[in-house]
């Protein structure tokens, strides 16, 4: 990799978005207080945070809708607030709340938007890509919520963008519609589109993203791949099981007893930084005694827990 020189450079270091010290002030209120972000080309990037954390403000600055009050922003090599139509032809934007063009069909909406771009994708291919091929002649306002969202994505893809902004794409969806939306977003990788995803659902970020940035109160509080966010991979695992009938806590191996963190009747909860060192003796103990542990569970902290800890801070919950 170090030898990789010339025009192509290192494919692992090709930032499509670079933000340094971004600030945004509305009157006396500073919504964004010095954010740094780097989004690599080809990634699905998740931007997480509770409502009011500064997510939408940041995204609208990156999309070129708002003028920032401080910091440096480069998106596709240009400053969004001065970028022109040539730049806008290279991005796609799915807004958090936008209704379809009211009295046009799905195919007409896409043909209208295709005409805005210098080299658009094919309308039929794009409808097929988002799963709306059989809804082409349906008036957009008659689509279901999930279908409307897919039309939004299709409208954002019709210009064949390099970078797609998706602002809370599954808010208000039922679980099936969310799964379908996730499959579709996952499929965008195949097109080589970089995705900037805003969400407040942890499972969404975990399922889709290569890289996660969490903000709270206008600042970045954590970043990394979803698996290691907030030191999650190093945090203690939670092991829980019920004592089999006829056994007592005192009969457990010493290493297991030492890890007990909580008791709820017969149910014990253990905390272990390295789960194998506790699970091994526990299962050997059960096996030797001819017992089973039917409700044995091992969990690491969910991204949800990490996120709540990060975004609510040390204060009272």
């Amino acid at each position: 990799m170090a030898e990789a020189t010339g025009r192509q450079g290192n494919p692992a270091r090709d930032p499509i978005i670079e933000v340094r010290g971004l600030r945004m002030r509305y009157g006396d209120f500073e919504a964004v207080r010095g954010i740094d972000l780097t989004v690599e080309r080809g990634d699905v990037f998740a931007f997480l945070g509770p409502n009011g954390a500064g997510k939408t403000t940041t995204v609208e600055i990156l999309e070129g809708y708002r003028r920032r009050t401080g910091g440096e922003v480069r998106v596709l090599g240009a400053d969004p607030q001065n970028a022109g139509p040539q730049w806008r032809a290279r991005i796609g934007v799915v807004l958090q709340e936008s209704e379809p063009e009211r009295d046009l069909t799905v195919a007409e909406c896409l043909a209208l938007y295709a005409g805005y771009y210098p080299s658009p994708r094919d309308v039929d291919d794009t409808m097929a890509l988002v799963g709306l091929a059989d809804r082409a002649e349906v008036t957009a306002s008659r689509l279901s919520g999930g279908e409307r969202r897919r039309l939004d994505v299709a409208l954002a893809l019709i210009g064949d963008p390099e970078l797609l902004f998706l602002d809370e794409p599954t808010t208000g969806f039922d679980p099936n519609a969310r799964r379908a939306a996730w499959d579709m977003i996952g499929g965008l990788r195949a097109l080589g589109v970089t995705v900037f995803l805003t969400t407040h659902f942890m499972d969404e970020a975990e399922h889709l993203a290569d890289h996660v940035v969490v903000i709270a109160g206008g600042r970045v509080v954590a970043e990394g791949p979803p698996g290691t966010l907030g030191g999650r991979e190093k945090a203690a695992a939670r092991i829980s099981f019920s004592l089999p009938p006829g056994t007592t806590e005192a009969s457990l191996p010493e290493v297991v007893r030492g890890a007990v963190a909580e008791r709820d009747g017969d149910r014990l909860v253990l905390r272990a930084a390295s789960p194998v060192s506790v699970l091994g003796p526990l299962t050997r103990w059960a096996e030797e005694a001819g017992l089973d542990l039917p409700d044995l569970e091992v969990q690491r902290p969910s991204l949800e827990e990490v996120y709540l800890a990060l975004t609510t801070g040390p204060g009272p919950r």
Partner: protein
Amino acid sequence: MQRRGSARQAVDSHGVGALVRFTLHQFPYDLRALLRNRQARFFTLALPVIFLVLFASIFGGHHTVAVSGGRIDTSAYYVPGIITLGIVGASFVNLVISVTSQREAGVLKRRRATPVPAAAIIAGRALTAVVTALAITVVLFAIGWGAYHVHVPARTAPALLVAVVVGTISFCCLGFALASVIRDEDAAQPITQAVTLPLYFISGVFVATSLFPHWLVDVAGVFPVRHLAAALLTAYNPHTQGAGFAGKDLLVMAAWGTGGLVVALRRFSWLPVGR
């Protein structure tokens, strides 16, 4: 201009050519959406026809109305009156409602994220309003001519066309201005009705102004609806001398239109404002 890439150059240079091309791309979609909208079809296209038939049938034939220079048949009075209503409905009422709802629904915001020039979106929508207003004018003109024998003298025909065009463009500008100050999509319909209905009444659209007290005529004279109705009536009035260009009425309308344009340019928002 200094860039290579000829395919994108047309988009990049916001020249007149690109503007016209994008406007002509936008226009048929806006027109199609309007024609497909049941509410717009009724209020903008059907209602003026219904009004003309009703008023001309009820009051026409046996009655006359005092106008400048003499008396004319009541149906001859209602044709320019209802054309006024048709023009205001297409270029103002319908435009205010659709632009406000598109803005609040995020449609304008989404279009703004594309490379299309902002002016082309505005111009495409304005063109739809102008074409609709012209179409409804032609329909009312034809009904008046065919069903009620209300003719326009050839010497005032150019004046009629000028009044229609100046009125349509002025009300279009006023429509963008009003849309830019309405914050709430649900308020657009009642606000436009509250603005236009009283103006129709005091401007002589439904009742001849010759029956009004002078002060009411003076109040109506402040607003553009009265001047559109007066300019159209001047062209329709067989007692009119000369070419029938109502210079003062056209000027007042143009002044309102210019004022509307200034407000629209300052206040127009692409992002939803009601949330």
